[in-house]
C-alpha cells in the first residue's frame, strides 16, 4: 500500500513541481526553449511508454532526480545505440538530458491536461499544492497548500482518537484505507492495487501478466552464422552422469536404509486418554511420601465485593490510620465500592496474586498441622460437681476489726475458739472466733511479723515474732490449773548463762519478759516465722538473713536453743515440722528440703521450679505438700510420687502470700495479693495407686487492696470448714460454708 501511495505522491509531486517551476521561474523555461532551438535534432526512443519517462521531468533544481533521469536516459541510449563506443554513449547522455528537458518543456507548455489524463491509475486530479516541502512546515497551519487561485486550502478537521477508532471499528474496509498526508485525504486501496501489493510482498513481479519465466527468445541468428562461437569439441561431462553425484546419492540412500537419517516426523499433538482408568477407585498406592496438599486459597468475603454493603467500606479516617500501622499489620485489601459493573477497573495485582500463589506452592515448606477445631469449652477438664464436695467456705460470715494496719499473720487456737492476729501496727490481738470480740491486746514497739498458737490445747500460749525477738506470751485463757502450768513453764529465773560457746549465745538468748508476762527470745537477726512442733514443746524460728544459722529450733521446757545440724543452701523462707514423723522441712527460695531430725540427714529435696517460694504447708497426712510462690503459682507435691510437682496451679495473677491445709477436711486454700483467696478441694487417697484429686471450689473475695498488698494470711479453722483471712486492709474475715 505504502509503496503505491508513495509512488503516486511522487508522481503528483513531480507534476506539481513542474507546474510551480513554470509559474515561478519562467526564465528557466525560456532558457530551455533556447536550448531546444539550439539542439533541434534529437528524437530517440524517448517516447517509449514503458519507462514512463515522458512525464518524469525535472529541472536542475532537483539534482537527484536529474541523476535518475540521466541514468534512465543512459540506459535508453545504451539500448538504442548498442554498437556505439563510449564516447558516443557520453554524448548520448547529454543528448538524453537535453532531450528530456526539451520534452518536458514541450509537454508542460502545450498540454498539461493531457498529462493528467495520462496517468491511467488515478482518476482524481492530483490536488496537492504543497510541493515537495517537508510537511512539518504545515504542521501548525490550518491550511495545506494553495489552490489554483492562490487561496489557502483548508485542512480537514482532525478527528480525535476515539472517534477514529470507533469509525475504524465500524468500517469493515478500514484496513484498506491509507491516509495521504500530502493530499490530506484518505485513499482506499483498490482491489487491483491490493493484488499488486500482495504480489510484491510475495516477491513476484508486480503485474500478473508479466511472465518472469517466459521462453527465452534467442535473438542471435545461429543459422546464418558462418562460424560457431566456439569450435571446441563437446566435453565428456556434458553427456556422462556425474560420478560424484551418484556417490553422494548412494551415501544418502545407505544412510537412510541404515536408519542414520531420519525423516522429520510430523509434530504430533498430545493425545488425551482416560488417564485415571475407567474405575475411579484405583487402589494403587503411591510408594512415595505422603502428599501434603497445599491449603486452598481463602474464599472472598463480603468486603471483596465490587459493591459491598456500606458498612464494609472503611471511612477516610480509618484509611488514614492504616498509614500509622506497621506494614505487616496493614490490611492488604481496602474495600471499595463501584456503583455498577461497568465501572470496575482491571485489578492491578491479578497476575501478581497468582504468581505469589505459585511461589507459595513450590517454595513454602509444608507441614501437616493439626488444626484444633473444637469448642474452647471442651478444653476445660471435667470437674466433679462442687455440690458434692461440700462443705467448704463460701461466704464471708464475720469480720474482725480493730487493727489499724495490715494484719500480717493470724493463728487459731487448737480448740478453734480463739484467734490470734498480728499486725504491722505492732499489736497482737486475741479474738473470740464466734463473736468477733477482741479479748486481749498486746502492744510492741515494732511491727509484728508472725503469730503462732501453741498446738496443744492445754497450753494456750502464743509465739509472736517482732523484729529480732520472739515472744512467748501467756494469753490467760484456760482454767486455773492450766494457768498454773503455763506460768511455771514460762517462768525461769536466770537467763541461760552463756556457758557453752559464744556462738550459741549470739544466736538467741532467752529472757524473762515482765512487761508482757512471757519469755523474750532475742535473736541476732530479724525473725520471719515461728512454727511449733505438734507436741508443743519445740518450735522453730527462721531468720532469712541468718545465713548458716538461719533456722533455729528451740525447746520451751528446757529453754534451750540449738542450730540445725544441716548446711543450708539458699535463702530460707520458712520451716515446718512434719505432722506425724520426725521430719523437718525447710524451704529455701527455690527448693524444699526434708530432713530426718533423728538421723540428722537429708531425706528428700523437692524441686519446685518456681522463681521464689513464699509459703509452704504440709498435708496432715504428711505425704503431700503445697507450696505457694511469688509468681502466683501453687505447686502440689506428692512426695511419694516424685521430687517434681504433681500439679502446678496457676490461679493468682499476683504473689501468693500464704497457703494452708485444713486439718481434717480435704480442703486447702491459697491467698494472694490480688485480694482473693482460693479454696480447693484436695483429696488424698489412702490407696497409693490413686493420685490426689484437686478441684478448685471457690474464689473468696472481699478484701480490698492497700499498698499493693491484698490478703496476707489465711488459716483454716481446726475443726470447721471455715477459713480465716487476714487482709492488708486491717480486717480479718471469716468465711463459712
Amino acid at each position, binding site marked *: 500500500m505504502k509503496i503505491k501511495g508513495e509512488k503516486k505522491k511522487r508522481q503528483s509531486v513531480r507534476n506539481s513541481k513542474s507546474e510551480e517551476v513554470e509559474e515561478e521561474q519562467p526564465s528557466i523555461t525560456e532558457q530551455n526553449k533556447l536550448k531546444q532551438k539550439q539542439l533541434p535534432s534529437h528524437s530517440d526512443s524517448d517516447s517509449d511508454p514503458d519507462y514512463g519517462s515522458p512525464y518524469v521531468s525535472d529541472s536542475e533544481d532537483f539534482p537527484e532526480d536529474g541523476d535518475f533521469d540521466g541514468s534512465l536516459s543512459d540506459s535508453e541510449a545504451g539500448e538504442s545505440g548498442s554498437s556505439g563506443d563510449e564516447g558516443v554513449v557520453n554524448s548520448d547522455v547529454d543528448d538524453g538530458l537535453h532531450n528530456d528537458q526539451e520534452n518536458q518543456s514541450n509537454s508542460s507548455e502545450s498540454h498539461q491536461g493531457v498529462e493528467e489524463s495520462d496517468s491511467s491509475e488515478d482518476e482524481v486530479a492530483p490536488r496537492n499544492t504543497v510541493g515537495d516541502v517537508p510537511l512539518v512546515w504545515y504542521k501548525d497551519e490550518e491550511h495545506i497548500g494553495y489552490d489554483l487561485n492562490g487561496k489557502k486550502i483548508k485542512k480537514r478537521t482532525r478527528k480525535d482518537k476515539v472517534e477514529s477508532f470507533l469509525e475504524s471499528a465500524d468500517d469493515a474496509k478500514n484496513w484498506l484505507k491509507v491516509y495521504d498526508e500530502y493530499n490530506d485525504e484518505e485513499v482506499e486501496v483498490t482491489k487491483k492495487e491490493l493484488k499488486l501489493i500482495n504480489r510484491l510482498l510475495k516477491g513476484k513481479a508486480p503485474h500478473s501478466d508479466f511472465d518472469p519465466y517466459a521462453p527465452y527468445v534467442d535473438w542471435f541468428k545461429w543459422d546464418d552464422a558462418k562460424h560457431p562461437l566456439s569450435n571446441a569439441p563437446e566435453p565428456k561431462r556434458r553427456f556422462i552422469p556425474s560420478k560424484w553425484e551418484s556417490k553422494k546419492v548412494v551415501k544418502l540412500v545407505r544412510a537412510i536404509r541404515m536408519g542414520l537419517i531420519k525423516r522429520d516426523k510430523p509434530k504430533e499433538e498430545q493425545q488425551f486418554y*482416560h488417564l485415571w482408568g475407567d474405575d*475411579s477407585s484405583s487402589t494403587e498406592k503411591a510408594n512415595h511420601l505422603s502428599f501434603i496438599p497445599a491449603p486452598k486459597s481463602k474464599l*472472598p468475603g463480603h468486603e471483596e465485593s465490587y459493591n459491598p454493603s456500606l458498612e464494609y467500606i472503611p471511612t477516610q479516617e480509618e484509611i488514614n490510620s492504616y498509614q500509622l500501622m506497621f506494614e505487616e499489620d496493614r490490611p492488604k485489601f481496602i474495600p471499595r465500592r463501584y456503583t455498577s459493573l461497568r465501572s470496575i477497573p482491571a485489578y492491578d495485582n491479578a497476575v501478581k496474586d497468582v504468581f505469589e500463589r505459585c511461589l507459595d506452592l513450590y517454595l513454602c515448606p509444608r507441614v501437616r498441622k493439626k488444626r484444633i477445631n473444637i469448642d474452647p469449652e471442651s478444653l476445660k477438664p471435667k470437674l466433679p460437681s462442687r455440690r458434692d464436695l461440700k462443705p467448704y467456705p463460701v461466704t464471708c460470715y464475720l469480720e474482725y476489726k480493730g487493727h489499724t494496719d495490715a494484719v500480717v499473720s493470724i493463728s487459731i487456737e487448737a480448740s478453734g475458739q480463739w484467734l490470734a492476729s498480728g499486725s504491722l501496727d505492732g499489736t497482737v490481738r486475741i479474738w473470740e472466733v464466734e463473736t468477733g470480740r477482741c479479748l486481749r491486746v498486746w502492744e510492741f514497739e515494732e511491727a509484728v511479723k508472725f503469730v503462732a498458737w501453741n498446738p496443744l490445747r492445754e497450753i494456750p500460749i502464743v509465739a509472736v515474732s517482732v523484729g529480732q525477738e520472739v515472744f512467748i506470751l501467756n494469753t490467760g485463757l484456760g482454767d486455773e490449773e492450766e494457768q498454773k502450768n503455763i506460768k511455771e513453764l514460762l517462768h525461769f529465773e536466770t537467763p541461760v548463762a552463756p556457758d557453752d560457746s559464744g556462738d550459741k549465745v549470739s544466736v538467741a538468748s532467752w529472757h524473762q519478759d515482765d512487761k508482757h508476762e512471757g519469755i523474750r527470745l532475742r535473736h541476732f537477726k530479724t525473725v520471719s516465722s515461728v512454727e511449733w512442733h505438734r507436741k508443743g514443746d519445740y518450735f522453730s524460728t527462721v531468720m532469712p538473713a541468718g545465713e548458716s544459722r538461719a533456722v533455729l529450733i528451740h525447746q520451751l521446757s528446757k529453754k534451750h536453743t540449738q542450730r540445725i545440724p544441716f548446711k543450708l543452701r539458699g535463702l530460707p523462707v520458712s520451716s515446718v515440722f512434719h505432722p506425724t514423723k520426725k521430719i523437718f522441712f525447710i524451704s529455701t527460695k527455690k527448693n524444699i528440703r526434708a530432713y530426718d531430725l533423728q538421723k540428722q540427714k537429708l531425706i528428700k529435696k523437692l524441686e519446685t521450679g518456681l522463681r521464689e517460694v513464699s509459703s509452704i504447708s504440709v498435708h496432715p497426712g504428711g505425704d503431700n505438700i503445697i507450696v505457694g510462690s511469688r509468681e502466683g503459682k501453687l505447686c502440689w507435691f506428692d512426695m511419694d510420687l516424685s521430687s517434681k510437682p504433681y500439679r502446678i496451679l496457676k490461679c493468682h495473677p499476683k504473689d501468693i502470700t500464704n497457703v494452708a491445709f485444713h486439718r481434717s477436711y480435704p480442703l486447702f486454700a491459697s491467698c494472694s495479693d490480688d485480694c482473693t483467696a482460693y479454696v480447693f478441694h484436695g483429696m488424698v487417697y489412702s490407696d497409693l495407686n490413686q493420685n490426689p484429686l484437686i478441684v478448685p471450689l471457690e474464689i473468696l473475695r472481699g478484701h480490698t487492696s492497700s499498698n499493693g498488698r491484698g490478703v496476707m494470711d489465711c488459716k483454716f479453722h481446726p475443726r470447721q470448714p471455715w477459713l480465716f483471712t487476714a487482709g492488708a486492709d486491717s480486717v480479718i474475715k471469716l468465711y463459712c460454708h
Partner: protein
Amino acid sequence: MAKPDSKPKQNSKPKAKKHYRPAGKKKEGNAAKYVTRSQAVKHLQVNLPLFRRLCILKGIFPREPKKKVKGNHHTYYHVKDISFLEREPLLEIFRDKRAHEKKVKKAEAKKNPDLAKRLRTRAPTYKLDKVIRERYPTYIDALRDLDDCLTMVHLFAALPALEREKIEVQRIHKCRRLSHEWQAYISRTHKLRKTFVSVKGIYYQAEVEGQKITWLTPHALQQVMPDDVDFNVMLNFLEVYETLLAFINYRLYHSINVKYPPILDPRLEALASDLYALSRYFDVNSRTSVVDPQVSSTSGSEQVETQKVGTASDESELRLAQLQHQLPSNEPGALMRLVEDDAGDVEEDDDTRECKKLFRNLKFFLSREVPRESLLFVIPAFGGVVSWEGEGAPFKEDDQSITHKIVDRPTLVRTSLSREYVQPQWVYDCVNARVILPTEDYMVGKIPPPHLSPFVDHESEGYVPEYAETIKRLQAAARKEVLPLPGVGNEDVEDPQKLLSEGIIDRAEASEAAERKRKMILEQNRYLDELKMEVEGVQNSSTPSDNKQSSSKETQAREESEPDLEQIVEDHANMSKTVMSRRKRKIYEAMQIGKQRKKAHVDLLKERKKKIQAAKESEEN
C-alpha cells in the same frame, strides 16, 4: 498410675558429647531424613532453575523438619522426595535438551543455519501425563487440586501474548480453549453453584463429583503486566496445569458422551464466541448420543405398545424429539430445550436439579457493554437461554419472547414493554440466592443493592448484612409459595401411598427435630437452673447460719452476692482454667484472643452501620 520408687533418678553414665557420632555410624533422625536445597541440587547434578522446574512439574515442595539440623535459614527437602526426582525420566530429557541446545548453538556459530533449523525441529520433547498420574493417583485427587489450576488457566486466557516474557500466542489460545471447554462442561451439566463478582475478578464455584471447585476469572479488561513477576515460574506451572486440565476435560466430556477435543464451528470461533460454539457442539453431539438410545427404546416401546396402552405422552415427546432431530441445527433455542428435556439424568442430585430450574423459562438478551463471556457461562448453567448483540447470536434483539434484557448503562432506552431491563448483578444475585429476585432494585440507572459474597458463613462470622436477611426472607417466601405447589402438581394422584409415606417420613423427621430441640432447651434450662441454684445455695447457706449475725449484715451480704452473678460465672471459668494443663490453657487463651478479634471486627461493622444509618436519618430530617 503406679508410684515409682521415691529415689531420684541418677545419671550414672557420663554424658556423651552432643554432636559426636562414631565413625561409620549412619546418620539418624532428621539429619538423615532431610537435606537442604543446595545439597539436593548438588546431588541431582542440575542447576537451580532446572531443579525448581522439576519441583514444579513433579509437585515437590520443601518440608518442615521438626529439628532443623543445618540451621534455620535453609529450605529442607525430604530425602525421599529428592530420590523421587532422581529417578524421574524427565530429568534425563532435560539433560538431553540442554545438550541439544548446545548443538543448535554450535550450528549457529558455525554459520550453518540449515543444520540449526533442522536441529531445532528435532528438539527432544516430553509429555507430562505420567507425572500427572503420579501426582494425582485418583481422579478425585486431581479434582480436589483444581482450584489453582483453573485460576491460572483463566488468568492466562486473559493475558496478552508477550514476546519478551516468552508467552506465546499459542499458549494463550490453548488456555482460552481449555477454559472454555471447562466452562462449557460446567454450564452444560449445570454444575455451577455460586458466583461472586469481586474487585479482583469473578469467582465461580462448581461442584463436580462432590468436590467444590472454586476459581477466579479476571475481569475482561486489559491486564496489567507487572515487572516484578517471574513469568518462567508461572509458565512452568501452566505447563502442568494445561495438561491436567486437558485430561480432566477429556474425562468430563467422555462422562457425558461427547468427543474430546471438541471440533468447533469455525464461524463462531472466529467471532470469539467460543463458549457458545462449544455449547452448540455439545448440543449437536449429545443430541445424537442421547437420541440414539431413545430410538432403540422407541422400537422397544413399540413392541410393548401392542400389549400396553399408555405412555402416550412419552411417545409424542419422542416423536417431537425425532422431528427436531431432523431439523437443521440452526435453531439453537429449540435444540437447547430439546436437550434439556431429554437429558433427564437419573443421577442428578437435588442441587443440580434446582440449579437447572432457576432460569428455566427466561430468555435473556445481553447488551453490548455487559461482561458477555461470564453471563454466557452463568445463565445457561442455570437453565436460561441467552443471546447477545453481535454476529453469530442465536436470536436477535427484536425477538418478542425475550423476558430480560441485561443492560449496564447510566440511562435506559426502553424499547419493549414486554421485557425487563436489569443490571447484570441481578443475574449473579439470583444465582447465589437460587431465587428469582424482584427486579425493582436492579433497574437500569439505579445503584443496585450490595452484592454479597456467597462464600461467607454468616453464623460463624457473627454478622449478617442487611441485604442477606432480605434475601433470606425472599427465599423463605419463595419456598413457601413454590414448594407445596410441585408437591401437588408433580406427585401423581394415583399413588397416594407414596405421598402418605412421604408424609410419615416428614412427620417423623419433624418430630425428631422437635425432640432434639426440646432436649436442647431442657439442657439449657438445666444449666440455668443449676447456676441459679448455686447462687441460691450460697444465700441459703448463709441464711440458716446467721444466728449470731446482725440482720443488716446479712442483707448486705445478699446485696453483694446478687449483682455478682456475672462474677460467679467468670469465677467458674477462671477456676476450671486453673486446673488446665499449661498447653491447653495456652490454646484456650489463643482461642479467646481469636474470638475477641472476630468480635472486634463485628463490632466495628456494627458501629459503622449505626453511623451510616444515623447519617441517613439526619439527612432525611
